[in-house]
């Protein structure tokens, strides 16, 4: 029986199965559709910032759409209270686009004809120097599933070199083992971002037909591995466009709630990656496109359930929309991003993972943040390693 209530010590696979949130559940679709204005008003009257599934159902429902301005204002107030008038900045550094997976939406799909590049540690450091020169102190290392080359030894060496210039290093790479994550943590990595892509099993199978990533359950269990390895920052997300965003949001919240209870010293953040045109996938029609209003509803609904979660927005989104979203709940943005390996030193050489939509320089984004009445924060944590 599907239930929204009750905590247990089950793993996330069991929790999602029990709640009926790992599939395109008719139960939840119906409940979301049956939600009325009264439910939304009750959800909004509850103290902002605390999660329960019933409340989130109301906030992501179509019935909440007329309350979007009210949700955005509450989200802004809460974000201001918890994070202050600040926006954190980071930049991604792509290491490799050689991939053993075949995710249909991705420019790095092993089956697509692409300009393949992997950076040596020296080349990666040279890219990082350009990023550091722009003022960044928080760097996100991104790589395709290039396990032979971008392995623990490679990453540990690179992170060791980067720690001089960057106060915080995170990774968004293929799934590793717990021991590998522990190795990364020891090398100085503070956070791992790993999207489930979609929590819907059937959709997951369809978009990830082959390669190590094809195993839904293994991917779902991976955040436990890096959280238990000590990572401070746990980045979660679903690719928006693959399945119904309302159901994805519920599953994402359950996953987050589970991780927060179990790994209580780590902070969960959410990203909102709307699928973008990518090399060789232009013809792909995503079945569940997420509009701007829906994106705002998702961001504010999650904020109203998770007061202290980092909400991250990349340059996938356009400048105008980003200018608005930093005022209603987003706490961290990238700027000046290049999404191909070597992209900072050489314009448009290797294939990008996706096309970016906000091509402003870091300085321009910094000015935008100031104009929005917030302080751009380049450094938010530096692990003390000696002393």
């Amino acid at each position: 029986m599907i239930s929204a209530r009750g905590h247990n010590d089950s793993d996330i696979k069991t929790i999602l199965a029990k709640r009926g949130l790992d599939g395109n559940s008719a139960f939840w679709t119906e409940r979301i559709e049956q939600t009325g204005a009264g439910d939304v008003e009750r959800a909004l009257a509850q103290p902002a910032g605390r999660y329960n599934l019933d409340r989130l159902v109301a906030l992501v429902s179509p019935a909440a759409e007329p309350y979007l301005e009210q949700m955005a204002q509450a989200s802004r107030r809460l974000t201001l209270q918890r994070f202050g008038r600040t926006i954190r900045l980071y930049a991604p550094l792509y290491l490799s686009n050689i991939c053993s997976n075949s995710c249909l939406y991705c420019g790095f799909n092993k089956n697509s004809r692409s300009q393949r590049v992997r950076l040596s540690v020296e080349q990666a450091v040279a890219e990082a120097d350009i990023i550091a020169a722009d003022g960044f102190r928080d760097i996100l290392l991104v790589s395709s599933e290039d396990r032979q080359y971008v392995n623990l030894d490679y990453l540990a060496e690179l992170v060791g070199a980067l720690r001089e210039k960057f106060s915080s290093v995170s990774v968004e790479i293929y799934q590793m083992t717990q021991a590998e994550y522990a190795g990364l943590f020891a090398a100085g990595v503070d956070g791992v971002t790993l999207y489930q892509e979609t929590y819907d099993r059937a959709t997951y199978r369809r978009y990830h037909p082959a390669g190590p990533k094809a195993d839904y359950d293994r991917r779902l269990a991976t955040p436990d591995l890096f959280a238990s390895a000590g990572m401070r920052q746990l980045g979660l997300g679903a690719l928006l466009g693959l399945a119904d965003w309302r159901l994805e949001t519920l599953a994402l919240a359950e996953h987050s709630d589970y991780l927060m209870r179990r790994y209580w010293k780590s902070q969960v953040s959410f990203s909102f990656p709307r699928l973008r045109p990518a090399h060789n996938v232009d013809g792909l029609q995503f079945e569940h496109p997420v509009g701007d209003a829906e994106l705002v509803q998702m961001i504010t609904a999650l904020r109203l359930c998770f007061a202290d979660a980092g909400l991250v927005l990349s340059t996938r989104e356009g400048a105008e929309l980003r200018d608005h979203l930093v005022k209603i709940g987003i706490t961290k943005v990238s700027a000046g991003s290049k999404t191909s390996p070597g992209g900072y030193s050489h314009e448009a050489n290797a294939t990008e993972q996706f096309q970016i939509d906000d091509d402003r320089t870091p300085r321009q984004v910094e000015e935008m943040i100031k104009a929005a009445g917030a302080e751009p924060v380049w450094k938010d944590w530096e692990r003390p390693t000696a002393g």
Partner: protein
Amino acid sequence: MDELVIAGRSFGSRLLVGTGKFASPAVMAEALEASGAEIVTVALRRVDIDNENDDTLAAIDRDKYLLLVNTSGARDAEEAVRLARLARAATDIEWLKLEVTPDPYYLLPDPVETLKATEILVKDGFIVLPYINADPILSKRLEDAGTATVMPLASPIGSNQGIKTRSAIEIIIEQSQVPVVVDAGLGLPSHAAEAMEMGADAVLVNTAIATAAAPVAMAGAFKSAVEAGRTAYLSGPAAAGRQASASSPLTGFLRD
């Protein structure tokens, strides 16, 4: 002259101000000025303590304000001790607000790790001002370990809920031999005045000033409230009662 004395140093102001969450270093500097504060806290996680050009540090006049660096973000004693030692290796910092907050959501202080770190840091020669839950026994243990103050929370940090831990803070004030600085959760000047009326030696405010619509004016409001609360405390407040007590119906006969 009614001065606040911490670790042998005198201060005219009993309002300590945090420097996080402001829209810009310029607004922060103006708010500090308006608050009359003489002690300001800075998070080591945010600044480059050895860089004079750091935006935040450059906006704080070190001749005017005592810089109280904090270890926010430290998840255990080891991290806090390392942060403190690294800061001191780079500068002449010796005043330290010790924060060990393993839970990134409510940022509640870990009592076990805080005591452990205090014992190490006091031996290292730091002047330690520990952020703690409102726990009277922990306060005494920290005092025994040699802290310069205790800083119990009024309610979870940044929550603006006011003094939710009143009865425990009353005990801490009653028992403490070091200054009691009420920290965290003070959302309004009236909350700060309430803490001072209770006999707190000082208060620390950040979010309520930094995220107000007019931070500089709010800083001034907190300044006045702290002064009013302190004056009231020193003036021996009249006892509050439920009714007027005009006559003595039961014992009046004794005076007849």
